[in-house]
């Protein structure tokens, strides 16, 4: 990985981390910190309720409904529990971003409770005293009045005293219901009157009056205190503090909630943005993938097309072989090369091996084995493959290793395969052409060398024939010979010598003729086209080929006068020779084992600007099945040694390629075959180096 791409990865990871962090942050922010808000609110409600109950219990004590002060003590325990609970719920606010108002409210609340506790403590003390005195006051008054009535002969002052006590009692009771200054003054005045009589009353009355007076004073003292305490208790702003706390909490909760709302909105927006981003990224990915695919497809198609054109146009087979499994892949051209439809049926090495020519198999197997053995030997081999119709094509395979195992042994090879049949054919033709040329040169040389002795042998024979005739005539008329009985020996000589000499002369003529034909047939010196008399070419070829046909066929010549044809003489001679030999072979096949002979008919005639040469035989014709293939190189029906399968191929190549002529044939099974060679009279000069060479 390059540094650049690594940096990109790191950057992308950082961005992803950042996005995730933002997401987490927003998520956390949207989660209410105030999850215990309701707990706190419930706690405040509880506090408020407790406070209200406390106040209610105070009133109960005040009115005497409740005389058990435990009720005013118990809330203290509950308060301290609830307050510590409040402290537990609120501490983070107190040291965090807590509003001062909240802190103040909590402190105020604590203070208010303390204050209220103190007031209630005082209230309890004063209230119990007040209650006792108030409750006792009527009894005390009655006790005093009783004492007065028990005084024998109570005077007017005592009776007034009794009335005063009653009046003070009444006003005191009124005062206890509604304390007012005027009533207090009235009670004070009454008490003063009572005290003025101190010392004038009998002891029991004095005692009772003192007790009464002290309790009235107690009421007078305690009642305002209790009332004041009650209003002070009611005025302690515990409820207010709780409300402030409550409001503050609610405000904070609302703020938090709205903040959370804001964050939720942010979260939503962020999430939407993220989704959009992801969608965009996904779309881009899909789009760029599509573009890449399209480009790839086009590029691949183009490349495939090029390869296809190249391989098809050049007839290049491409193949791959897995040496481990033996699987083979190859392109269509590999199939077409051997006349098959590309049906992908040849998938294994063995299937292909079965098509290799038996003679080439050992070499082929050796090469494949060499690849497996990692000998370093190139995979480059010429071999024959059997076509669908049974014929063989020469191919060349060249390959190299694609994959190698860890120890360097090729496990997979890939290669190309060319059809080199024509190349092989040319090689053969070249070889035979060279052979023919040297034979021609040799023949010309031999003919030349033979020509001179033949000349003087011929002259000598003619002289001998003349001399023999003169000698025989002389012997007949010679002395000693006249009248003599005819000598039988002499007669025999006279009869047979002249014809023998005549035959010698004739034979010499034949030799001379053959030598000349050979010289003409071989045209050893001809490198360029020259006007050739086709009829003469035919005649000299017939002489050369005589041995091929003389036992099976007679030759009929139907030659008409035709203009000379521009051509390579030796090649045309070869064409004619091949046709005559084929005709002779066809007839020989037909008449084999019989005494019969066939007829080879050679014709020449002119057609327009062409001269046509036809060679007809009376063989058995070409079977329908092979008519299309007779011109194919190396195609032959003859046994090994009799034909190479190149004769007609050479004929066609020579006529069509070198001379721009045509070759065709007519055949009828059982009747024979006629080949027509049509050559333009004014052939376009075309140097075919490979053939002319």
């Amino acid at each position, binding site marked *: 990985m390059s540094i650049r791409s690594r940096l990109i990865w790191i950057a992308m990871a950082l961005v992803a981390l950042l996005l995730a962090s933002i997401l987490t942050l927003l998520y956390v922010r949207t989660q209410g910190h105030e999850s215990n808000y309701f707990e706190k609110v419930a706690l405040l409600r509880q506090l408020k309720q407790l406070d209200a109950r406390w106040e209610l219990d105070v009133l109960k004590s005040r009115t005497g409904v409740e005389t058990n002060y435990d009720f005013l003590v118990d809330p203290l325990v509950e308060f301290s529990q609830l307050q510590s609970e409040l402290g537990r719920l609120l501490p983070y606010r107190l040291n965090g971003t807590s509003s001062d108002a909240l802190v103040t409210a909590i402190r105020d609340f604590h203070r208010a409770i303390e204050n209220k506790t103190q007031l209630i403590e005082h209230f309890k003390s004063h209230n119990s005293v007040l209650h006792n005195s108030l409750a006792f006051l009527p009894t005390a008054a009655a006790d005093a009045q009783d004492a007065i009535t028990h005084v024998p002969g109570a005077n007017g002052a005592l009776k007034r005293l009794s009335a005063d006590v009653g009046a003070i009692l009444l006003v005191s009771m009124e005062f206890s219901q509604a304390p007012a200054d005027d009533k207090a003054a009235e009670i004070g005045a009454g008490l003063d009157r009572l005290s003025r009589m101190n010392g004038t009353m009998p002891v029991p009355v004095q005692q009772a009056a003192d007790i009464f007076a002290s309790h009235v004073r*107690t009421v007078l003292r305690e009642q305002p205190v209790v009332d004041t305490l009650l*209003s002070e208790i009611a005025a302690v702003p515990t409820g207010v503090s709780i409300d402030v706390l409550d409001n503050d909490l609610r405000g904070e909760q609302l703020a938090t909630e709205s903040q959370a709302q804001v964050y939720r909105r942010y979260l939503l927006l962020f999430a939407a943005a993220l989704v959009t981003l992801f969608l965009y990224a996904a779309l881009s990915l899909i789009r760029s993938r599509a573009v890449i695919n399209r480009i790839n497809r086009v590029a691949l198609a183009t490349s495939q097309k090029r390869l296809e054109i190249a391989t098809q146009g050049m007839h290049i087979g491409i193949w791959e072989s897995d040496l481990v499994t033996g699987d083979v892949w190859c392109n269509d051209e590999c199939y077409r090369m051997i006349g098959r439809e590309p049906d992908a049926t040849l998938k294994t090495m063995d299937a292909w091996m079965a098509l290799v020519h038996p003679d080439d198999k050992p070499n082929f197997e050796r090469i494949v084995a060499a690849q497996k053995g990692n000998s370093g030997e190139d995979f480059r081999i010429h071999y024959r493959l059997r076509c669908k119709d049974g014929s063989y094509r020469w191919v060349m395979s060249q390959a190299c290793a694609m994959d190698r195992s860890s120890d360097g042994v090729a496990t997979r090879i890939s290669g190309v395969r060319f059809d080199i049949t024509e190349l092989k054919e040319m090689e053969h033709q070249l070889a035979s052409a060279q052979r023919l040329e040297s034979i021609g040169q040799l023949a010309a040389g031999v003919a030349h060398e033979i020509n001179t002795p033949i000349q003087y042998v011929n002259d000598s024979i003619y002289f001998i024939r003349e001399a023999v005739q003169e000698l025989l005539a002389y012997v007949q008329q010679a002395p000693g010979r006249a009248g003599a009985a005819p000598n039988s020996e002499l007669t025999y000589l006279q009869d047979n010598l002249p014809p023998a000499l005549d035959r010698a002369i004739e034979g010499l003529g034949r030799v001379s003729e053959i030598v000349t034909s050979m010289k003409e047939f071989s045209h050893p010196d001809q490198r360029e086209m020259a006007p050739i008399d086709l009829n003469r070419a035919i005649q000299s070829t017939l002489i050369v080929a005589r041995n091929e046909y003389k036992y099976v066929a007679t030759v009929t010549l139907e030659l008409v006068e035709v203009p000379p044809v521009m051509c390579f003489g030796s090649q045309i001679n070869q064409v004619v020779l091949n046709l005559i030999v084929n005709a002779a072979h066809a007839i020989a096949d037909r008449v084999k084992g019989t005494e019969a002979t066939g007829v080879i008919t050679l014709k020449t005639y002119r057609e327009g600007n062409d001269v046509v040469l036809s060679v007809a035989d009376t063989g058995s014709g070409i079977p329908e099945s092979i008519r299309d293939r007779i011109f194919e190189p190396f195609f032959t029906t003859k046994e090994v040694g009799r034909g190479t399968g190149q004769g007609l191929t050479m004929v066609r190549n020579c006529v069509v390629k070198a001379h721009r002529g045509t070759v065709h044939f007519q055949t009828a099974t059982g009747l024979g075959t006629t080949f027509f060679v049509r050559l333009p009279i004014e052939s376009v000069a075309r140097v075919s180096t490979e053939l002319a060479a």
Partner: protein
Amino acid sequence: MKRGCLKLLLLAFSLFTAAGSSAGPLMEPIKPLPLDSAQNPSRVSIGRHLFQDARLSANGRVSCASCHDLAKGGADGRVRSVGFNGQLTAMNAPSVLNAALNFRQFWNGRAASLEEQVDAVVQNPTEMGSKWTEVVTRISSDPVYHRTFAASYADGVTRANIESAIATFERTLITPNSPFDRYLRGDTNAISAEQKAGYLKFKQYGCIACHQGVNVGGNMFQKFGVMGDYFANRGKPTDADLGRYLVTRDETDRHVFKVPSLRNVALTAPYFHDGSAATLGEAVDVMFKYQLGRFASAEDKTVIVKFLNSLTGQLPPQPP
């Protein structure tokens, strides 16, 4: 407005009282003690040992139990107790029994909890005269304490845990099932006819105004000498006589004391903060004179004392 509401409420409650005056006999201003007080047993056990452990005092002479003898009604029977170095304490030792049910601790209520009370006594220069660091060292050096504290408290022996253990133990010192409590629970034969009459007098004379609730007192402050000047008549004023004033420095709190619980009162003579009343009869006399400002007959006082005797409960069995 507020005042109007208040009056309305008062009226409503007056009506309610009139209608509800025929409440059952058990609806009394005095409530029976709870029959059990569940506490952490291992802490109670530690507390019990500490309660009797003199190592809490500076010189190892006195323990809590020295002044709060459970066998003597949770007090020591002395007018004033003897501190670690032989000095007399400022006031009469109040009973530890049912102290957990008092709304505050000490005569002047200066401790809001039993823990605070322990703290004050341990450090009091007359009573135990200790420093907490020394106490903690002494206690934690005891392997038994070391082990039991570690088992009961996460942080082992500490000042707070010592206080907690003792207070926890004290919360078990409740004396339920007194005859009067049984009477309150519905056993009408649990107390005698005289005691019943005494209870009636107790209420009629207004003793009940301060001595009510579950602890028969112990839930409010009251001025000693509401209806007369007790201290002037007694003479020899002391600092301790100032009562709650020493705590609040509020003039109205002068001579104000916590109303003591009358539970087990028959066992805890002498009486009052100064231990001036040697018997219950004397104490009742003082109360009538200075608190109620009333005159009662000898018979009435006798039955009241008899009633007070019915308030003696049973301490849960203590392990040896």
